């Protein structure tokens, strides 16, 4: 698809239904993100409550999580947030090829983050014998929260992959690209959730 092709709508006009419903779609999507935020908040506050109600953290017999690898992996995810932002900006400005490259970079970085998380899980479970089911509150809260976040990243990668296919097929135009906006909002959301998780599990 050429740059010119995203400059005009497929039917050489504005999709009236899209124009009328765009704000509603945006509000609906923001409500979805808020509900997801509530879900994460409830788990995060449960974790913090349990952490502060015990005697010392982490519980005896469990090593503190090493921050170096987590910091590196976090930067990979935060970098994907930056590339996704520039993907949307390039699409808005009609730079289709740059948009595609930034979108692909986001997918690669997101998959890289998931690979890093799998490596860390492998190290914890088989190296340090910290498990979801056998390490008390620490294991349960760590694997539940980071696993839930990882699942969100995985769905995000799937969503962005669909965006690549749809964009290549010419589904989005300069005046009609809510799917890309929603993808960017979602991806920023998973980034922001990781800022909180990274802070509470590795930094404090």
């Amino acid at each position: 698809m050429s740059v010119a092709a995203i400059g005009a709508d497929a039917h050489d006009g504005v999709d009236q239904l899209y124009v009328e419903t765009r704000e509603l779609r945006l509000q609906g999507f923001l409500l979805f993100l808020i509900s997801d935020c509530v879900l994460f908040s409830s788990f995060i506050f449960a974790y913090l409550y349990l952490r502060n109600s015990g005697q010392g953290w982490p519980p005896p017999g469990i090593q503190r999580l090493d921050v170096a690898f987590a910091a590196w992996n976090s930067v990979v995810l935060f970098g994907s947030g930056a590339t996704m932002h520039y993907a949307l900006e390039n699409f808005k400005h009609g730079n289709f090829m740059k948009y595609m490259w930034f979108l692909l970079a986001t997918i690669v970085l997101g998959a890289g983050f998931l690979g890093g998380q799998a490596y860390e899980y492998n190290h914890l479970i088989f190296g340090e014998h910290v498990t979801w089911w056998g390490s008390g509150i620490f294991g349960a809260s760590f694997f539940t929260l980071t696993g839930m976040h990882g699942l969100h990243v995985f769905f995000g990668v799937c969503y962005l992959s669909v965006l690549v296919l749809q964009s290549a097929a010419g589904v989005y135009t300069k005046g009609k690209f809510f799917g890309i906006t929603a993808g960017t909002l979602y991806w920023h959301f998973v980034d922001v959730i990781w800022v909180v998780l990274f802070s509470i599990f590795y930094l404090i």
Partner: protein
Amino acid sequence: MNAQLIERLGAVIGGVVVAVVAFYALYKDWQATGIENQVFKLMLVLLGVGAVLALLAGLNIVGFAPKGA
């Protein structure tokens, strides 16, 4: 060079790059209006903060580091 040092170096360099990019994008979008742009601005601030935290963790200023790291 051990693995810890490489990870920390990656976190520091990546943290600087992402923080600069996030805050620059925020600066460029500061005048933008509309609900989605306000959300984007909030997210960019938090993204920048996250990058700075990762940078500080890479520098061993915050977070836990095992002995010998």
